[in-house]
């Protein structure tokens, strides 16, 4: 059996977009409203995990392969570090908010507070890709008791 029933698949098709959009909203308004990169990233990962639970592993991996999730994870971590190093280069302080010091935006606007939204986006992408990878790993491996009392991990086979 690939995935779940038709009801679950249809509901997932409608709901997944809204979960994804809500995650993006939580990330990009992290400096104005409660939320931020970590919470938004977890919600985006939830949308992909919903896809995987409803449609099966193959379909979800076609949308976001584990290799792509890997690259997103690493490049978002690098982006966060680059923001910190730019703060060191331009402002003289590691993680200095050099954009806010040079171009102070109006408070309570979306484009304000310098490097904080960029860091939020980086953390959001990183957390989403990481949690998706963790779910792939956990759903692939399975713990089986061996004969001599020790447990070993074997690969879980896709149900058909």
């Amino acid at each position, binding site marked *: 059996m690939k995935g779940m029933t038709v009801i679950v698949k249809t509901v997932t098709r409608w709901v997944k977009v809204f979960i994804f959009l809500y995650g993006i909203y939580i990330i990009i308004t992290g*400096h*104005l409203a409660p939320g*931020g990169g970590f919470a938004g990233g977890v919600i985006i990962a*939830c949308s992909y995990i919903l896809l995987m639970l409803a449609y099966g592993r193959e379909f979800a991996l076609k949308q976001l392969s584990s290799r792509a999730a890997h690259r997103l*994870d690493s490049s978002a971590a690098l982006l966060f570090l680059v923001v910190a190093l730019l703060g060191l280069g331009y402002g003289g302080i*590691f993680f200095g908010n050099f954009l806010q010091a040079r171009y102070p935006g109006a408070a309570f606007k979306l484009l304000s*507070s310098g490097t904080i939204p960029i860091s939020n986006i980086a953390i959001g992408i990183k957390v989403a890709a990481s949690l998706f990878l*963790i779910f792939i790993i956990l759903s692939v*491996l399975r713990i089986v008791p061996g004969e001599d009392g020790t447990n070993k991990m*074997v690969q879980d086979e896709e149900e058909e």
Partner: protein
Amino acid sequence: MGIEIYLLVLLIFIIVGALIAVEAKNLLSAVISLGAVGFGLSIAFLFLRAPDLAIVQIAVEVILLIFFIRATIGRDIIPAKGHIHWAGLVVVCLLMVAVFVFGFFAFRSLNEFGAPIIASVQDAPSNKYLKDGLKETGAANIVTAVLLDYRAYDTLGEATVLFAAIIGALAVLRGRAATEKTGSRRNVSRRTESRRAGSEGRKDK
């Protein structure tokens, strides 16, 4: 006073949920009561006026429930065997009592609930964050301003911890990726399984 009563009820609910999660025989009911603990915690954060923490707690709790159910339910349950060592139980009880007494006196020495330390210490850094946070960082959400500007080192450390965890988990998976390239993975895994079993059997003889 009103909020404290709600909080007390919630905390009792959380403790009962945690006890059920530990003692439940069925794995599914243990996971569900663990979820009740998490959602109770997020409501407690809302009562304490920390919406950022509440959002993170709810999102992480949902994803953790999915992880636990996907990773544990429907898999084999290995019942713990062995006898209870009475000496160990006594030591554990004594340690619990000691921690409880220590915690009681430690919390007695803290400020009263609802009267934070920043109200009594004038030059605490939190006062500066609250006063100058909007002007210096431009972020309307002071929690984000502290997380990503004043205390960004901590956030970098958190991101590093997550990154290291992913690398460790993928290192466990590395053997699978190597076998996947050589051929159909089911055949390969079956063959290695049988080969391993055969060699072990030979060793036993």
